[in-house]
């Protein structure tokens, strides 16, 4: 039997709001679900030493990142009684105000969905080899570091 290929997490550029609406609509046939928890990361126009961020350009060690995303997702399924979990992350340029990360969990009960969503967000921030170049309005840049 062939192993099911893990779903790709990376998308090119910003994640459109419609993608989120579609994800929700796709779950309306799953009537064992009672709660969805969604986290969205949005690019902030941070001001650093008088310069304002206008975009982040994301790059990644893609093969390893997709592997780690898959491992994190599997860990969440073994830890939480979830019905589904979806993760999307941007690669390339994402402008301020646009969405760069979508984490979407569903479960029969709210606490499970919420805890699983938080777990995924923290694990993604800590473990996935993604790099972010903050581009300022004057086209200079600095490298983002997760806290």
């Amino acid at each position: 039997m062939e192993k099911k290929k893990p779903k790709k997490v990376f998308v090119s550029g910003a994640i459109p709001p419609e993608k989120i609406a579609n994800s929700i609509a796709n779950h309306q046939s799953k009537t064992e679900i009672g709660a969805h928890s969604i986290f969205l990361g949005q690019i902030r126009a941070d001001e650093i030493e008088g310069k304002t961020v206008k975009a982040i350009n994301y790059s990644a060690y893609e093969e390893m990142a997709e592997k780690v995303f898959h491992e994190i997702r599997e860990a969440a399924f073994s830890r939480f009684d979830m019905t589904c979990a979806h993760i999307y992350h941007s690669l390339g340029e994402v402008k301020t105000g646009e969405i760069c990360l979508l984490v979407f969990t569903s479960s029969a009960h709210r606490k499970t969905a919420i805890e699983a969503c938080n777990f995924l967000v923290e694990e993604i921030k800590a473990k996935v080899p993604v790099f972010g170049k903050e581009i300022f309005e004057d086209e200079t840049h600095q490298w983002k570091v997760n806290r």
Partner: protein
Amino acid sequence: MKIHVKYFGQVAEAVGKTEEVLDLEKGTNLQDFKTRQVRAYRIPDPHSVQIAVNQDLMEEKDLEEGDEIAFLPPFAGG
């Protein structure tokens, strides 16, 4: 022995390339190799740089023919 080396983010920026193939002495140690590259390319803030060998984070290893070594600056996903 040949190894594949990949550089990402600000490390790639400092190194001036995103990958290269190097011919190392058999049994070269991972930490020694990291130190060598940090010096050769003046990679800034080396303590913050993690190394993955064949897509797994590692601190100690005797490198082998065909290994893929990645230099990973701090993660910034999400």
